[in-house]
């Protein structure tokens, strides 16, 4: 039996032969609009395959996410996508979008140029106009029409995904790091309707009391192999509580290592993690405005102007709220925005007396090195 959670784009077309899909990069692309237009939004993530094609198109001083996404496309692994949508975040994504358009002229390739200054009084009307332009282009290209009603339905559907994922994150200590990671990845790859049902079942299995809160009942996710409950003995032990921070997590190994070495990640500040599901979209009023608001009000990514003070405060309050004892930064090499914020964030942690560890992926030649560094870090925390 196939695992109920999809784990990569590879099996997508076989699993959903009758669905239409559009790819996107990064959480600044409104999935709701794609969904309302009749598409399943599929987030492009870094794959672990060796790069075979992208080297001819992208220099080596470019983050692994961009290189891998382009590589998958050039290698023909994303043939089921009818388009790819980019946000305007970092310089790398900006260039990648253009490279994509030049190499796949038959696809719908568009960038939503989000404002960088969320606090400018003019940002909202600009962003609404930009979202409307995106919507019109999508309608024209695919000859579909998107009503406000459809958009509102999509917003509700996606809010439900966000809510369920939040529920899961609150119970992450009950499941293995890998299960948590797989679930989040699946949420960005699978049709939300199917994913939501599956996750609701999984949550029920973990916490039957949710039934009282009107969570839908369903087939038991444990028997379908979606989750693997963790023995309680492990939970009881005293494990250093950590926060994981960075742009994305492309494989669960840092999480697993932390766990197997005796620590636990209690919460993450990662775009493939909590940044994906926090901040719902308002279900009231004009849906385009509601979407625009979410992007302007959500916790900003480091690509946004003036984001650091808020990011830094949030990190410190997260530490307090979660009684976290340390922060692990997982930063891919050549990711400028996050690299810029690392020294001031580290400084804020120094001031707060919270230890931290920097893991620069791509740099790490072996998992062994990562293991040693995490181990030393955990020991250091335990001594404190």
């Amino acid at each position: 039996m196939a695992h109920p959670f999809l784990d990569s784009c590879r099996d997508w077309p076989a699993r959903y032969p009758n669905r239409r899909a559009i790819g996107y990069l990064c959480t600044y692309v409104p999935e709701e609009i794609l969904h309302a237009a009749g598409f399943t939004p599929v987030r492009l993530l870094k794959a672990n395959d060796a790069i075979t094609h992208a080297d001819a198109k992208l220099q080596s001083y470019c983050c692994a996410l961009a290189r891998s996404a382009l590589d998958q496309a050039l290698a023909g692994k994303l043939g089921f996508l009818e388009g790819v949508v980019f946000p305007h975040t970092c310089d790398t994504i900006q260039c990648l979008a253009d490279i994509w358009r030049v190499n796949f002229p038959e696809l719908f390739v568009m960038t939503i140029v989000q404002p960088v200054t969320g606090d400018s009084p003019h940002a909202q009307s600009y962003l609404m106009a930009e979202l409307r332009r995106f919507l019109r282009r999508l309608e024209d290209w695919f000859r579909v029409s998107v009503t406000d009603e459809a958009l509102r339905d999509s917003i509700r559907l996606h809010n439900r995904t966000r809510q369920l994922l939040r529920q899961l994150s609150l119970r992450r200590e009950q499941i293995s790091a890998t299960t948590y990671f797989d679930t989040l990845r699946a949420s960005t790859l699978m049709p939300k309707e199917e994913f939501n049902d599956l996750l609701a079942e999984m949550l029920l299995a973990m916490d039957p009391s949710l039934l009282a809160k009107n969570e839908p009942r369903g087939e038991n996710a444990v028997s379908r192999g979606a989750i693997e409950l963790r023995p309680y003995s492990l939970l009881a032990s005293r494990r250093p509580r950590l926060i994981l921070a960075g742009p994305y997590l492309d494989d669960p190994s840092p999480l697993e290592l932390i766990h197997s070495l005796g620590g636990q990640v209690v919460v993450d500040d990662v775009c493939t993690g909590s940044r994906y599901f926090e901040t719902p979209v308002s279900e009231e009023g004009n849906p385009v405005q509601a979407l625009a608001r979410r992007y302007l009000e959500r916790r900003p990514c480091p690509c946004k102007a003036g984001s650091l003070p808020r990011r830094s405060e949030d990190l410190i309050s997260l530490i307090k709220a979660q009684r976290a004892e340390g922060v692990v930064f997982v930063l891919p090499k050549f990711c400028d925005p996050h690299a810029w914020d690392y020294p001031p964030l580290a400084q804020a942690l120094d001031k707060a007396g919270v230890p931290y560890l920097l893991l620069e992926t791509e740099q790490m030649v072996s998992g062994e090195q990562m293991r040693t560094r995490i181990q030393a870090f955990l020991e250091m925390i335990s001594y404190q």
Partner: protein
Amino acid sequence: MTEKRYKKLKCAEDLTGLMERHYAKARYFRFGRPLAWVTSGAPVELLRAMDVFPVYPENYGALCGARGEAVALCEAAEAQGYSGDLCSYARSSVGMMSQGKKAPLGGLPRPNLLVCCNNICGTVLKWYEVASRFYDTPLFVLDTPFIHDQLTEYSIQYVAAQLQELVRFVQKHTGRRLDQNKLKEIIGYSNQATALWQEIRELCRARPSPLNAPDLFINMAPIVVLRGTKEALGFYHKLHAEVQGRVQQGIGAIPQERYRLVWDNIAIWYRLYRFYSYFVDRGACFVADTYTGGWAMQLQAGEPFECLARTYTSVFLNQSLEYRCQLLLDLIQRFSADGFVMHSNRSCKPYSLGQYDIMRQVSQRSGVPGVIIEADMCDSRAYSEEQVKTRIQAFMETLDAAC
């Protein structure tokens, strides 16, 4: 000596004097005028019209790069935890902050204001925030939406509205008001100097070309740093006359022009002469480039805020890969170039990522060969002399075979 193969312009001393005076004024003779650090694509006309004195950290970075002093500054930034993969202008600048007066040229004077426009890259957003924290100085960010296909009306309105905010910001922090007449006058100077700079570049369509890449790179400084001033205008008048004289007398920038090339990206500052001398030795002159033309944009007529919005949002680094392909193709054609050289500059992702596709497309469409050289504009640690030489050698052989 590499300098011997480089025919010095008579204007060179004027330029040195002009730039020295600029830095001296910034430090000692501002007479109370507030000092702003601005990015190279900031709408500086507005600031000048409010009697603010602008300085350009990017120009400072280039100067340090050319003097071979950027690496030490970069290392100072790296010691503070900033990654060695970040833009080397930005790293140099961050390194300079912590060095105070010990930095090259005594460092840039402390800013009263910071004005950052993201029409060149996203790096400046982060860099200026570092400066804002370090100096505890107010920062204004002007957001100019990137143009992937077309410039929309609502983008122009968005930028124009922010320009109004910028005026209020400057007023709030300096007490100075915008003088509309002065703004018109400054836009006038800006446009005249721009037009002259454009004409000077066009003079290089002559055979032999009166200027080579190092000339273009060195002489672009005033069009960026002194944009909108009478001094810049005076300088470009003089330069124009001299370059025109060269054309009339058939004097070329290099001893024997056999090949005409176009350059893409920022200069390799720490090898400015030596790098190009490899080409000069083989009779290759860079007659045009994509970078120094970036500041040759005319401010359109009409309502000043809208014009400024339109112009500054349309700078070439804020436009798509297709646009930049077209730009390069156009230069190759108009300047009758035999080939082009692209500097893959690891500091500057927005300028460099996409060059592989640009090269393929431009070669295909123009029929002339191109080559990509991996380096960095200021960080000489990323430069491999041997690799570069081998590349150039191979490229010149292709040219020999093609021409």
